[in-house]
């Protein structure tokens, strides 16, 4: 990595802090509501930068267990195999893949989501 600190994640943190401390107070209620969406979006981006590569690799490994012949395992390929009826819905590796991949997605998109919290407890 050739870039100096602050890292990309640290830069986004600085933006979130600025929005939360200096901007939030200045806004009327309907824009304060939008600002919450903005800071949430920035936190998604942070988590994706932080965790995204590893989670995507984990997903590829899970997909390889379901579709043995695949060269480049992807969600697209897994989705189309299910669609074409090439996989039995009861197959254990499919079950594991769907659970694992979905948890990974939500851990980036919204780790506060009730079902995610329930399933990781």
């Amino acid at each position, binding site marked *: 990595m050739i870039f100096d600190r602050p890292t990309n994640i640290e830069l986004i943190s600085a933006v979130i802090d600025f929005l939360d401390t200096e901007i939030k107070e200045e806004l009327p209620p309907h824009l304060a509501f939008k600002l919450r*969406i903005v800071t949430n979006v920035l936190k998604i981006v942070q988590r994706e930068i932080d965790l995204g590569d590893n989670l995507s690799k984990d997903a590829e490994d899970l997909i390889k267990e379901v579709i043995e012949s695949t060269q480049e395992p992807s969600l697209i390929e897994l989705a189309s195999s299910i669609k074409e009826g090439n996989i039995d819905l009861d197959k254990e590796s499919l079950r594991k893949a769907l659970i694992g991949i979905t948890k990974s997605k939500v851990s980036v998109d919204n780790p506060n989501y009730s079902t995610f919290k329930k399933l990781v407890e």
Partner: protein
Amino acid sequence: MNEDLSILLSASLSKKGINGSIENLEPLTGGASKETWKFNLVNSSESSRMIFRRGSGAESSLAIRTSDEAKIQEEVLKKGVPVPEIVLVSNSNNDLGNSYVMKFIEGETIARKILRDECYKSALPLLAHQCGEAIAKIHNTPLKNLQFLPKKSPIQLIEDLYLLYESYKQPSPVFEYAYRWLKEQNYGNFEDSLVHGDFRLGNILVNENGLTGIIDWELAHIGNPIQDLGWMCGNSWRFGNSKKVVGGFGDIEDLIKGYNGISNEKINAELIKTWQVFGTFRWGVICLMQAYAHLNGSINSIEKAAIGRRVSETEIDIVDLLLLGGD
């Protein structure tokens, strides 16, 4: 703008023989595709609170015409469903556009407030039973005057949803799994009924005694009635109170008891769960639709962009329901 609208409203109302001056006309926050205004209609003897609702012409492809919502409200009111009384319907392209005026009903719509504020504590234990009764009354409404509504069998609904999902070309293994599962289910032999289509906190009015009104009929259609019950039980509409299966406030037994006490059709929790999976898939596809309205450039909006990352919430709910025994 306000003054023009005020003049139009006053003229249209007096054509119906309703006279009075329009006062305190103010926009209310609401859905992005519809305008909602409140005002007082004041004459020498009284002042009545009214609501004006108008379609923008840019409604979602799933929605019915705004003026048709008013026709449904008139029909269900006859069956004792708590809905605002309709005062005026306009379906012309000029003047008031596609719109209607209804009487104001007291009550809170914001889910967060209903679930957390002290003054609704007494209402929450009653609400699931009341919702069950109200939904059953909606489903008992005669369809004779509602033939303009789209009619969809469960399989058609599933196929429509799948086509919409497919059109965005963002494949989801979980949605593919749900689609295959949904196609294999038994939806029972129910008579076609009026379906509200979006019955949940946000679209119902609540005061300290419970349910006072049902609004937002834009997703209404004719079909299998149980979908209204499954929709409200989806985790997407529990607003974080996931242990309370019915809308984040109630238990499924109370909803079923309320429903079965009024309805001609008797239902059970298993049927509701099947429709809960459908409803969760449906909300997921609606999230996709909103996100792609932003991505395709038709609406540039941070809210719509953000909602694209809520699709995974519906995926994890489907995984929980179908693979992990969740409720």
